């Protein structure tokens, strides 16, 4: 304390007065809890973003109808991931700095999450990674303000692989057609590493990475028809997946190979009549409007029906992911309030409540691990045409528990995969038959 003494004294005085006023502010309930949500409202990925947004609006209405979170109504602010990285970060800052949101839910794209998570950390803003899949964020750094209310790419891929190995253990060749971006590449890296470990004799006959948003897969399909793989994996989604499936179906590729489409739950309603029976489809978690364990649950049914009524479609996994983020938030406020002696918690207390949080959206209950990663069960099955719906449903469902198929906290997924052995094939799963 030499020359800076005066300044330090001033700062101390200012700090003291702030501290004195702080408890007064904290005890007062705000008039609303502002939730900033990053989602795609433009671009190809809006096939996920818009159902996510619709679900958020529906859920906010429901929360407000019953009085809000700890008695405080919620208000939603949406920002568009499709507007590009700079606009998105600027928008995110605007939400935090100008709109003064209390919590954010960002985002769908792994790219957006990689971009926004460190920003949230710097801005000390509670952020729920509500839909992005990259396993890297929590494997590569420690976070206080970022939490993921769902699974990551590793269990999603492991569930698909286990299901394939259980249902069709004797295949010899495989080909992959993934979108050419981080998700497509990373998911294949995880899948192929585990496949090599568990079934080393399988030959990869084609690795195709058409660009994201490619309008035409004719040449890729010709190549697959010529290569005749036993299994074709594609983790594509949205319009790309739909186009690929249509073109492949038209040219008889489904008759030749078993398809594994871990994200196809989100396309089922659109692919009516195009997706034959027997295709392995996943849902990035245990999300399905006919979830065998909950489909008769009143709360579940009312969500599905209200969503269908509002939007004209049954909810797909991004809608369920959004529901999980809201459930996490609700649980966090409740837990923080309880820890606060029933008083309305300030933001930091809500963040404190996040670790180890347990909550349930419209699937099995989820726990936040110490590394802030959510533990979410994985549902996977095969397509089947029924008379009940004008599109294929998922049958022969298996649901895997999360812990059994993902790297433990602090462990890199690829390293964990290298340690897998044949016993992994025995990973238990609950099985369900449609209509039983």
């Amino acid at each position, binding site marked *: 304390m030499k020359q800076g003494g005066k300044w330090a004294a001033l700062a101390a005085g200012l700090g003291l007065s702030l501290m004195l006023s702080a408890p007064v502010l904290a005890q007062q309930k705000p008039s609303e809890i502002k939730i900033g949500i990053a989602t795609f409202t433009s671009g190809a990925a809006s096939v996920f973003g*818009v159902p996510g947004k619709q679900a958020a609006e529906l859920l906010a209405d429901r929360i407000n109808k019953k009085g809000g979170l700890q008695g405080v109504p919620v208000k939603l602010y949406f920002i568009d991931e499709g507007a590009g990285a700079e606009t998105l970060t600027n928008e995110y800052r605007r939400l935090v700095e100008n709109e003064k949101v209390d919590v954010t839910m960002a985002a769908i794209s792994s790219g957006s999450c990689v971009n926004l998570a460190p920003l949230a950390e710097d801005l000390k803003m509670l952020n729920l990674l509500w839909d992005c899949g990259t396993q890297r964020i929590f494997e590569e750094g420690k976070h206080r303000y970022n939490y993921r209310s769902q699974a990551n790419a590793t269990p999603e891929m492991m569930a698909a692989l286990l299901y394939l190995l259980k249902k069709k253990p004797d295949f010899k060749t495989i080909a992959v057609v993934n979108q050419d971006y981080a998700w497509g590449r990373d998911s294949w890296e995880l899948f192929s590493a585990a496949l090599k470990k568990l079934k080393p004799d399988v030959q990869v006959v084609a690795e195709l990475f058409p660009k994201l948003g490619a309008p035409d897969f004719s040449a890729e399909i010709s190549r697959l028809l010529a290569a005749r793989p036993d299994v074709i994996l594609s983790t594509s989604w949205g319009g790309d997946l739909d*186009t690929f499936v*249509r073109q492949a179906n038209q040219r008889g590729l489904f008759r030749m190979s078993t398809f594994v489409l871990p994200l196809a739950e989100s396309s089922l309603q659109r692919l009516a009549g195009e997706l034959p029976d027997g295709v392995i489809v996943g849902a990035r978690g245990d999300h399905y409007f006919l979830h065998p364990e909950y489909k008769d649950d009143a709360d579940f049914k009312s969500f599905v029906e209200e969503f269908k009524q509002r939007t004209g479609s049954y909810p797909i996994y991004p809608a369920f992911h959004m529901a999980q983020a809201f459930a996490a938030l609700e649980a966090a406020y409740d837990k923080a309030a309880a820890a606060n002696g029933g008083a309305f918690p300030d933001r930091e207390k809500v963040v404190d409540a996040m670790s180890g949080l347990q909550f349930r959206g419209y699937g099995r209950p989820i726990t936040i691990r110490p590394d802030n990663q959510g533990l979410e069960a994985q549902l996977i099955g095969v397509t089947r045409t029924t008379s009940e719906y004008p599109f294929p449903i998922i049958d022969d469902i298996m649901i895997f528990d999360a812990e059994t198929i993902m790297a433990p906290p602090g462990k890199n997924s690829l390293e964990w995969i290298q340690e897998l052995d044949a016993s992994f094939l025995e990973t238990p799963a609950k099985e369900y038959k449609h209509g039983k």
Partner: protein
Amino acid sequence: MSHIIILAVLDGIAYGSLVFLVAVGLTLVFGVMRILNVAHGSFYALGAYAAASLGLGLTALGLSPWLSYPLFVVAAAAVGVVVGGALERLLLQRIYRHEEALQLLVTFAVFMILDNAQRLIWGVQPYFYSEPLRLLGNVSVAGITYTAYQVVFLPLVAIAVLVALRLFLRHTLAGAVIVAVTEDREAATAIGVDARRVFLITFIIGTTLASLGGALAAPTTSILPGMGADMIVLSFAVAATAGLGQIEGTAVAALAIGLGRSFAVFFAPELEVLMPYLIMVLVLLVRPEGLFGKATARKI
């Protein structure tokens, strides 16, 4: 090996045919109006959406899916005449005397508006209408199944459009007038050609071709917001490779770029996306006026 080459050639032809339809419209508009229409890709998208909407309407009304073929042409022409015509009359006519940079930007603005408009009108969920593709069934080449629509119908349409354009430009009065304006606007106006009319007609033909490309692509693909953005650069690449304003050249360049792409898928998948731009850069560096373009000197 030869087996694979046949496959790659077929895929290249199918793809090139579609790209040709779009690129030839772009090149025609440029040749006559000297405007590079950045919104050209939006017409491709609008054509696809219009075709799919009409097609789904057919299905809803329970009418024969065969009607979709004539409806494609109707959809394309409707988009070209209504949207293209309005654009030329209301906007482009005001900017013919502006600098090129401003003209490009006007079409860029139109691109932004139309792109957004598609999303507002048709939403974000992919649209499909693959009925016409199914109707024509499959053909088998070297043991590999192809859709007749892609490897027979689309190339035939492309050839028909090429021949029709040639006949129109060489053997009709309207065509002759368009050619005259392309070659020397000053002289053509001096002998009493109504350039305004020629521009309008050309722009409608050009945008109709783009939307026809979109309409014909509709059964093969998912129709999504933003599908025009990539098509526009691709058709630029084709048109520039051929030499802007070159109708027949565009067909050759479209085929070359289609083949380049499909061979890349078979032999070097990493290069697939790069292929059209690599071809374009290489051609332009060697022949700046494009493969078939003619260099002109300024009169002093």
